[in-house]
Each structure stands twice: as structure tokens, then as C-alpha cells.
């Protein structure tokens, strides 16, 4: 059967992708970011998962507000890189896992998560910006050593799913993965955050103390986070920082006693960039 071997929480700021594309690894302003991702990339290179299930959000790129899905799962075998206004990033199209994702869509709906389902749509920086940091060798190699199952979460337009609902989605994803008969090793990824706000006079807001507390709670007491409301997340981490509820979906797909094997935090400009790796006991 398919098995979840761990989870990753990661920011998905577009500048993470830009820093990668412009090869900023040796630039002192960007080196801490690359150094923060290196252990996560090493962990993936060592564990070699077959599939990453990605809880991510679209940024009004693929989907628009005339019909914005609350939860949507991709079930195709290839996803182009989205054009966000400057042409797509020079990155190979992402590999999907159509059979597993179709199974997961079916399992989730039968488990009372009524997902929207999409096919061959392009995906934006919400997924592709951390992915190139997690697999830095994929672009030079011209292809991905891993497949993705994209699960889109609406964190743009209220009403958004509640923090508790995201947690439950993660639990349902764990059941869906476990009910796939073939042997596959799976890592769940929750993207977004950490603190930032991109609207109004409060734009540029950060809160490192809250970010550090969040990184602790997501590991040791995620239930405390599920009891918070979206207004609390917006107050503490900025209105856009509330997207960290997608980390709760990742955490909900993991065991209670999962080990945190890596964490890094870097706050250079407008958005706190964090990556954390959680490993299941084999």
C-alpha cells in the first residue's frame, strides 16, 4: 500500500522561485535561504519519495473569482508551469500521478470531502516556487524525479475553509493514501506563510515571535492551532499569513508523534520564509 513517510512545511513566496531562477545561491542576501532549503533537499534525495501530495494555493492565476474552488485536486499526469504575467518560469512541466490522484479524489469524496477536480491546468508559484528549492537538480536535469498530487486550497477569498477543516482534510488525505493498493512512498507538503501581509497600509507586517511559536505548535500541539480562528491568524501573522492553515492539512496527514528533523527561518524583506521537515518512524 501507499505510505506517508513524512511531511514538509514550506513558504511559497514567488521570490523563492526567482532567487532559484537567477541562481542567487552565492549572493549573501540570499545564501541563508538556500542554506535553509539544502537539508530538506538532501532529506528528499535520500528518502526518494515517489509522490509529493501538495497542499498549496493558487494566486488568482489558474482559477478566478468568477468560480473559486474551496478545495480542488488535480488528477492529470502533467501540469504546465503557469504564466503569471512574465511568461512561465524556465522549469520543466510538473509530473502528475494520475492513477493515485484519481483514487484520492474518489476516496476523498466518499469520505465526505466534496473536492472540485481539475485536469491539465497550469500551476503557479504556490507550488512551483518551493519545488525547485526542494529538488534543485531537476531543472538542470530537465525533468522531475518525483510526481505531485496538487490539492488547491482557497486562502484568497473569504469564506475560506476553517483551520480545523484543513486539519481534517489532512486526516482524510492520510486515509486516501493508505487505501491505495500499490507500494508507493509519499511525502505531504503544506505551503504558505509565514507572517506577511500584502494589502493596505498594514502591508509589510511581520511577526517573528508568532512565526517561531507557530513552528513549535505545528509540531507539538497542532490542535491548539485548529482552535484558532482565521481572524486570529490574520492578527498575529498578517492577513496573507493566514494561509499557514495549509500547514495544518499537512500536519493532519502525519502521525501525532512525528519527528521534526529540520527547520529553518529567514525573514529578509516582506515575507518570512520557513521550511520544516517531519519524519515518520518507519
Amino acid at each position: 500500500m501507499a505510505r506517508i513517510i513524512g511531511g514538509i512545511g514550506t513558504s511559497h513566496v514567488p521570490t523563492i522561485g526567482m532567487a532559484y531562477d537567477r541562481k542567487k545561491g552565492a549572493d549573501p542576501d540570499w545564501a541563508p535561504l538556500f542554506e535553509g532549503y539544502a537539508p530538506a533537499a538532501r532529506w528528499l534525495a535520500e528518502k526518494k519519495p515517489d509522490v509529493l501530495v501538495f497542499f498549496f494555493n493558487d494566486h488568482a492565476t489558474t482559477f478566478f473569482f468568477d468560480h473559486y474552488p474551496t478545495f480542488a485536486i488535480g488528477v492529470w499526469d502533467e501540469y504546465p508551469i503557469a504564466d503569471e504575467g512574465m511568461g512561465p518560469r524556465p522549469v520543466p512541466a510538473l509530473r502528475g500521478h494520475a492513477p493515485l490522484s484519481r483514487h484520492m479524489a474518489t476516496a476523498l469524496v466518499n469520505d465526505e470531502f466534496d473536492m472540485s477536480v481539475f485536469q491539465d491546468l497550469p500551476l503557479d508559484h504556490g507550488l512551483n516556487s518551493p519545488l525547485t528549492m526542494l529538488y534543485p537538480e531537476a531543472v538542470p536535469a530537465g525533468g522531475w524525479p518525483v510526481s505531485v498530487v496538487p490539492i488547491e486550497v482557497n486562502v484568497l477569498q473569504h469564506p475560506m475553509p476553517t483551520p480545523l477543516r484543513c486539519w481534517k482534510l489532512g486526516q482524510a488525505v492520510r486515509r486516501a493514501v493508505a487505501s491505495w493498493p500499490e507500494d508507493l512512498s509519499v511525502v505531504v507538503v503544506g505551503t504558505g506563510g509565514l507572517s506577511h501581509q500584502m494589502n493596505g497600509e498594514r502591508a509589510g507586517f511581520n511577526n517573528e515571535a508568532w512565526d517561531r511559536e507557530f513552528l513549535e505548535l505545528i509540531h507539538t500541539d497542532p490542535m491548539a492551532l485548529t482552535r484558532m480562528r482565521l481572524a486570529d491568524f490574520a492578527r498575529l501573522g498578517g492577513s496573507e499569513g493566514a494561509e499557514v492553515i495549509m500547514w495544518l492539512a499537512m500536519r493532519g496527514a502525519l502521525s501525532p508523534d512525528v519527528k521534526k528533523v529540520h527547520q529553518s527561518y529567514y525573514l529578509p524583506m516582506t515575507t518570512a520564509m520557513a521550511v520544516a521537515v517531519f519524519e515518520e518512524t518507519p
Partner: protein
Amino acid sequence: MTAFSSNPQLAGAERLEGTFIFDLERSARGLRLNRFLHGLVIPERRALFKSDPQAAFDQARLTPEEQRMVLELDWRALIHYGASFFTMEKLGRVSGVSNPAMVAAMRGETLESFLATRRVPGAR
């Protein structure tokens, strides 16, 4: 700012100053403008916008005020009006304006004074 009385998840969010929560009311108010901005992900649409902005505005039926905010890249007015930051981001990319510059404008600061408050002003 209105109270988000119908959404208990947002109770108290109306007290966050300088914050424009993108809910269904804002989304409805900004729909035509956001549709235009979102359309800039299509190469032909952004080519038209660059070569003949008036033709692009007419096609999208933007009001004179909407046209002004877009032409002048008035980020603060756009967000007040009902634009989503994430559709504005497309206009930023098409116009060569970075996110820190958009953030500075929304705060009512120059880019230089905003960068002076950041830990790594070169990281953009």
C-alpha cells in the same frame, strides 16, 4: 471597514487597521477590475494592454476611475477599491514593478524608506 458579522471566523478582523479582507462583498465590487487584471496572464491580452491600453480597457468595460488607477499604477487606490493583491501582482509583473515597491506604495512610503526598515534590503 465593515464588520464581517456573517462570518464568525472573521469576528474582530474589522479592527485590524489598514487591512482589506478580501471577502465576497469586496470580490463582487472588484469583479470587473479583477477580471481585467487576471487576464494579463494571457500573452495576447498583455500585449494589447501594452500597445493600446484604451482598447484593452474598452474591451474589459473598465470605468474611467478603474482605468485611471490601472494606468497610474495607483496600488493604494486599487486595493481600497476592491482589487485583489494577487491580480494586482499580474499588473506589477507586466509593468516591471516589484512586490516590495507595491507594498511601499500601499503603506504610503517611498521604496527607499520602506527598504530601510527591512532586514535585507537587497533581497528582492
